[in-house]
């Protein structure tokens, strides 16, 4: 697979995937692994890095895939592929339609989409945590409680959990 042709894969995924970035990431993963471009474990590392920076997760993931196989400019090239389709679709919609969110059928369709998205997310979450042991689950639970009850910002929670887990495992390793 030519790395420049992967542009069209990202273009296609961005143009066809409803439900936002989190719906796109598992589909990017599927395509990349199917095409033997990046191994699954490497993709998880790459996604973890993408997720530790702010901004749309699909954009960051596309950028990291490019960085991994060809450097910054290939990353930006893939970002462009994710950027183009929604930009033109929204441009069209914003100029054509005023209040189409009022249509009741669109609301029903949306309800279905949200349920679909939660199934995709659950599936993706399981692929992330399936090798976790009890210690990882404790950290996962603590992190969730920090965000949910104490309204911690995501970035602080990410840093706290990542580094406290790192310290605990390094101490245990010695």
């Amino acid at each position: 697979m030519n790395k420049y042709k992967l542009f069209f894969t990202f273009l296609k995924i961005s143009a066809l995937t409803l439900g936002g970035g989190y719906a796109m990431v598992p589909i990017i993963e599927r395509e990349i692994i199917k095409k033997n471009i990046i191994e699954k474990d490497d993709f998880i590392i790459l996604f973890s890095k993408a997720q530790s920076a702010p901004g749309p997760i699909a954009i960051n993931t596309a950028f990291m895939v490019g960085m991994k196989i060809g450097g910054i400019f290939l990353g930006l090239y893939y970002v462009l592929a994710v950027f183009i389709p929604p930009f033109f679709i929204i441009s069209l919609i914003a100029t054509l339609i005023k209040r189409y969110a009022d249509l009741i059928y669109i609301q029903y369709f949306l309800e279905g989409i949200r349920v679909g998205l939660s199934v995709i997310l659950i599936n993706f979450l399981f692929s992330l945590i399936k090798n976790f042991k009890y210690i990882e689950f404790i950290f996962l639970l603590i992190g969730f409680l920090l965000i949910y009850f104490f309204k911690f910002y995501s970035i602080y929670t990410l840093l706290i959990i990542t580094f406290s887990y790192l310290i605990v495992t390094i101490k245990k390793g010695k």
Partner: protein
Amino acid sequence: MIIKLFLIFFKIGFFSYGGGWSALAIIKDELVNVYKLISINEFLDMVSIAEITPGPIAINMATYTGIKFASFLGGFFATFGLILPGILILISLETLLNFLSKKYNLMKFYKSLKVGVSVLVLFATYLIFSSSVGDLKSIIIFILLLILILFKKETHPLIIVFSGGLGLLLIKMI
């Protein structure tokens, strides 16, 4: 106005961790409460439009807001502002990690980062699940899709469209 849009979305891009769904709260605060660019109803419309069109939710929101206030250029610069912080942070992060990986083995760090990132995915999953699955119709769709995804063992791009279709179909029956 274009510069203002760029700066507003740069700020949003800088603070939005954890994917579009977690970022919606920040987008709402900035656009509705702080800068008063749009009303809350307009915001909810925008969310619906962003969801039923392909592509990352936050990108769609930025493009839509930008176009509304300053046409295509506005849409472009709002979106550009949104993705720029993440890209810059990823480049710095990757440079730092490359530097560190010459001295240390980073596998433990990546494993820790994965635990931290899983917390964010878990929270995003919780957010979308709790806002979508509740009544009988959504539970039926949820179970159907869960069976489908467990059976197929991969995330097909059309699954979201399919779930939207189920949302429309079931409303007639239940």
